[in-house]
Each structure stands twice: as structure tokens, then as C-alpha cells.
């Protein structure tokens, strides 16, 4: 009986952790040490009073691997909770990106039009460049970036995904 290879899935995991030195290294080290993927990672303190940070990891793997990742994370001492937003119900995912394009004339016009249609904001302007700020789902940002590619794309800075469950309940 050959082993059943299940196709990889993309999952967004959200966790609450003690905001102590080394906690991020612990989590990143777990992923690299055990050979798991990190597609995107965001981390920031969410409660100063109780020293809690929220970490959002987008990862890909077959369902048993995703299960392993969750239980490996959950047993780390400073991890309070791990929630798989992809299976927990509906959730909102957002990412912010800053994108620099350089160009003159028609290209510049075109870039501005595209930015407008994506509801990106212009946060810096010179006579030959723009910096756009865009917020949305990662796919929307991917698409925006690919459209700007031929119009003088210089560089992209993305925050990674922040995510939260829909509805009244917290994690």
C-alpha cells in the first residue's frame, strides 16, 4: 500500500504568546527546525498590560502536517493559544503594502490610474516617482504589484498577513 500523499493546503494560524525575549525565535526556530513552511509572518504586541503578543503565520502543508504544526506550537511554554483561522470559521485577512514606482509621462499616468482603481493611496510623490500604500487581501496586493511591474516598479514592502475571526467571539 503506497503512502497517501495529501495535497498541501494554505492555512492561517493565529496565536497569542507571552511577549518575552526569544518568543519569536522559538516559533521561527520550530518551523525551520522541523522543516515547515512560513509563507508570511506578522507579530506585534496586542496587550501591553498582560504582555501578550499576537503572531499570525500563513503556512502551507498537507493536513497532517498542519495538525503537527498546531500541536507543536501549542506545547511551547509561552504560547497561550493557537487558532487555525482557516478551519475555525470565517475570518478576515488583511495585508498592507508600500510600493515604489519610478517613471515619467504615460507610464506615470497609467500607474496613477491603476492605483486609483485599487484604492491605493499615494503617500509620497516626486516628479519621477510615487509610493503607494495599499491594504487588502494578499491576492489583491499580488495583482496590484504585477500590474505595476511594467510601469517602473522599484520595490515592494509588505507587512505579511494580519487575520482575525469574524463575529462576536474572540480567540
Amino acid at each position, binding site marked *: 500500500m503506497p503512502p497517501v500523499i495529501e495535497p498541501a493546503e494554505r492555512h492561517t494560524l493565529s496565536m497569542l504568546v507571552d511577549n518575552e525575549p526569544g518568543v519569536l*525565535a522559538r516559533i521561527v526556530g520550530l518551523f525551520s527546525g522541523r522543516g515547515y513552511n512560513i509563507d508570511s509572518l506578522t507579530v506585534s504586541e496586542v496587550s501591553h498590560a498582560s504582555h501578550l503578543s499576537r503572531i499570525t503565520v500563513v503556512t502551507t502543508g498537507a493536513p497532517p502536517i498542519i495538525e503537527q504544526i498546531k*500541536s507543536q506550537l501549542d506545547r511551547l511554554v509561552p504560547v497561550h493559544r493557537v487558532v487555525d483561522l482557516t478551519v475555525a470559521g470565517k475570518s478576515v485577512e488583511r495585508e498592507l503594502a508600500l510600493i515604489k514606482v519610478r517613471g515619467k509621462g504615460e507610464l506615470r499616468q497609467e500607474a496613477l490610474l491603476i492605483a486609483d482603481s485599487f484604492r491605493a493611496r499615494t503617500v509620497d510623490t516626486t516628479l519621477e516617482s510615487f509610493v503607494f500604500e495599499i491594504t487588502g487581501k494578499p491576492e489583491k496586493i499580488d495583482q496590484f504589484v504585477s500590474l505595476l511591474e511594467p510601469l517602473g516598479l522599484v520595490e515592494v514592502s509588505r507587512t505579511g498577513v494580519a487575520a482575525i475571526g469574524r463575529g462576536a467571539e474572540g480567540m
Partner: protein
Amino acid sequence: MMREMTGAEMVMQALIDQGVEHMFGYPGGAVLPIYDAMFHQNQVKHILVRHEQGAVHMAEGYARSSGKVGVVLVTSGPGATNAVTGLTDALLDSIPLVCITGQVPTHLIGSDAFQECDTVGITRPCTKHNYLVRDINDLARVMHEAFYVAQNGRPGPVVVDIPKDVQFAKGMYVGPENIQHRTYQPRLKGDPEKIKAAVEMLAKAKRPILYTGGGVINSGPEASRVLREFARLSGYPVTSTLMGLGAFPASDKQWLGMLGMHGTYEANMAMHDCDVMVCIGARFDDRITGRLDAFSPDSKKIHIDIDPSSINKNVKVDLPIIGDVKHVLEDILTVWRGMKAEPDRRALAGWWGQIDKWRARKSLAFQPSSSIIKPQQAIKALYDQVKDKDVYITTEVGQHQMWAAQHFHFEEPNRWMTSGGLGTMGYGLPAAIGVQVAHPGSLVIDIAGEASIQMCLQEMSTALQFDLPVKIFVLNNEYMGMVRQWQDLLHGGRYSHSYSESLPDFVKLAEAYGGVGIRCANPADLDGAIHEMINVNRPVLFDCLVDKTENVLPMIPSGKPHNEMIMPDHPEALDEAIDEEGKMLV
């Protein structure tokens, strides 16, 4: 209790309040204040080692044989890095340790100061948890938390890294009674619904097997007792991993012997052919499962483990129960009795009939010799003379370890200390010293190989200094035997660097340390020489010259399933046992 004291005094006070009686360590610049605080008290006894790796293995032997937390104290830099092997060993075998490391003063951290290393960075993946204490006001809490984390849930090693200025700083000490961990609250009781489902599956089983592991030992002696009670009540056969030996008595007729790569034929065949398997405190390690996609293909699997990440890691199970072995087994017993469950006696009789046929293959058989000592014969002779004594066994890693597991039989838990997960050569002697510290009146024997023993042999000196009369029983075949066996298996018998030339004269070496050396090469002298060894109340290094060519059998070759074992009556099958795919595995 709140009291002002220095960081170094807090460390000692915390150890005392945690009930620590012994610690293993080696001083150095960054822990001198703690050593000074130690000087001013008599409650915690310190065993001075010769190498920090030895300190950690001693603490492991101490912990595993006594059920207490093992405590280590080492200095910064090389002190900490030398401890890494032992910490990793303890992590893989789930041994509760607290390892205190000195660190350069906080203002020098990151400056590549003398004997500085990033201890928490280095030990992060090889500890259950670790701490760098930068503030004296955190120190007492962290010390108590470290003990809590080390011994609760799945046990493991915890490092507390303390910069030297924090050791000198003054702050308020708080006792352990005021500490409660915010998040780490492992689940002990199993889900009642799942326990009920497990009992139903177990009662319906026609070909059941209980596959037990080190988790039964870690759960405490009570877990072994409940396991025995359930086995007796159900009449089901019991096997165990290397780490679980002793949880179930080897003299019991329901005992099948160890399973896995060098386990018995009956244990492995029963694993392969069973219809209900209960994995109790074990983790479906690759030494156990053999070829994964052919592992016990027709069974329903129940898995009891305190660590949720062990569930479905290697083998998908049908019924996972998260909880402590003792609690879960107790509840299974209660439900079994409450439901007036009865095993299927007829099916069970047939199953035992089959098992007896497998047993009749005598998979641990070997050819004794009158001219040369067979290593198996040496273990048997040792066992026969010490089995009725209060004896603890440790091992190094390799062929001798497997022969010890096969031919030395254990009736009680906590009597067998071996490096299972990491396979650390050099573990056995320091572990034996740790065991002897915990059990000063008992007979403690390190069953060793001549290669492994040289990895931590310097600890002979520790044994002498502290009057710890450990016995080192070396099966000397002049080879790194397991390496040689695998070179036979995979590399056409080309013994690339597996032969030890220039071995020391172990008898003179023992004497040089101030111990006793005994050599034996003749089967006729073996019993007498062993008798001499166990009756000397000093450390003994016993150099037992054995057959150089013996291989460990039976064996599941890598990449093969349980029902394709190589048996001692057909050892020639070893030559072609492993295919190209199997060669890639270890």
C-alpha cells in the same frame, strides 16, 4: 516567604525549597557566586564532574532512577556548550532536568566577551524551555517555574541562564508556594468519552496488544502498577520499547519482550498482525515502526500520550487520548470494571496460540562457545548473578546496549537507564554515577562497549572522588560494533574506521584512576570474574573480551516491515536485506 538576598543565594534557596538534595556541576568564572553561596550551606550536595556532558548524563541517571528532577550547574560559554549533548538527550528521552548556566554580566552580553556564548539561543531547540534572567526580581520566580515546567506534562530539560551581575544583585526571594504558571497547564485526565470508546474497542479485540513506552515510567511507579493490573484483568499481551523496559515484569507470561528493530520476533509479529493496538506512553519512533506504510496494517490504534504533538506524528491513529498514562489507565480500568467488560476468551486463546508459535522461533537464540565469550553469554552470566540483587543498569550506545536490552530482564520500572532517542555514546558511565548518588546502597552497573566507554571515561575520577562504587562492564570487541554491523549490512564489509587500534589497557587504566580493573577472556572464568566485580565495594572497570564478529539479531532491516525480520538461524539474510531505499535510512 519573602526575604532579601543575592541572586546566587536565591539560586541555592530555590534548590533547597524545591527539595533538591544533589546537583552535578563544574565551576567556572560565570558561576563563582553560586559556588560561593553553595559553600555556605549543607543541604544540597554537589557532585563535581570532570566534563559538563558528564554532569548532564549524571543528572539524567539520577532523575530517571529516582523520579526526581536532576539538577546541573555549569559555567558560561564552553560549560554551556558542553552540556548541549546531554540536554538534547534529555529532551528526546523526556527526562526532567533543570540546568543552571552562568552567563557573562548583562552589560557584556553581545560583545563576544570571554567565555560568552548565546546559551539560550543554542539551547532553545534542545530544551523544553529556557530562560535568560536579566532582572534579579525575576530570578526566584524563574527558578521555581523551571522546576514546574521540567516535571509537569511531558518532562524535559529546562535551562536557566543567569548573568554574573544578576548573581551578585540583591532582590526579594519568593518561595515556590507563591508561583503559579500562567499558561502551562498540561492535561492529566483523558476525555471520558474517548476512554469509554477505548474500553469498547479493547473488549471487542480478537488480537490485542499493549505497546508500552517510556511514558509509563515517566508517569511514575503507580502507572506501572495500573498497567500490570489491566494486563492481568484482560489477559492481553504486553510489549515495550527500549525506554519502557521494566514497566511490565519480564518474568510475566504475558510479556513478549522488547519490540522494534532488535526486538523479539513474537513482539514484532504480534504488532504486525494485531487487530487492536494500544500505544501507551510511546511515540511510534522509527526504531519501532520499521517501514511505515506496512506498519501494523490491519489494526485499530489507540494512543495514550500526554503530549498532543505525539499524536498522528508518524502513524495515524484511530483513537487518541491525551492525558497522563496513570490517570488514563486508571480510568480505563474503572470503566472496564463498571461495564463488566470481558475479553473475548476464545479469540484470545487463539491469539496466544499464535504468539506461542512465534515464541518457539526463539529469536534471541545464539550459539554459545567454550573457547570465546559470546557477548550475549556475558550479559546472561551477569544477569544470572545480579538478578536477585537491588540492581540498576545503565548502558552506552551500540551493540552492547541491544544485547543488554535483549538478555537482561527487568521486573520493576526505573531500573534501566539508556539513551534511547538520541543514542548518545558516553551516556552510560555518568548516568550510572547519577544513579549511584540517588541509590548509594544499590548495585549499579554500566553495560558498555569499549568505544562508547571512552567518550566519558574521565568520570571514573568522579566515581572515585565521591566513593560511588559503580561497575563498568565493557563488552570489548575492539570494534564500534554497531557501525561494523551496518558496514556489513550496507557497505560490503568495508570496515571504514570502525576498528579501534591502540585501545588502552583497561585494567591499568582503572588502576590509574584508583579503581579496580578486571579482565576476562575465557568463558570458563566469566562467572568467577563477575562474582569478583560485584563483590568489590569500589568502582570497577571490567574488560570482557568477547567475540569480535557477533552481530545483533534478530533485526528488522531498515525499510522493511515487522514481518520481515532477519533471524539468528538465518543470519546470511543480512547480506541482501536492505534495498536501495532502505540504505537511505539510518
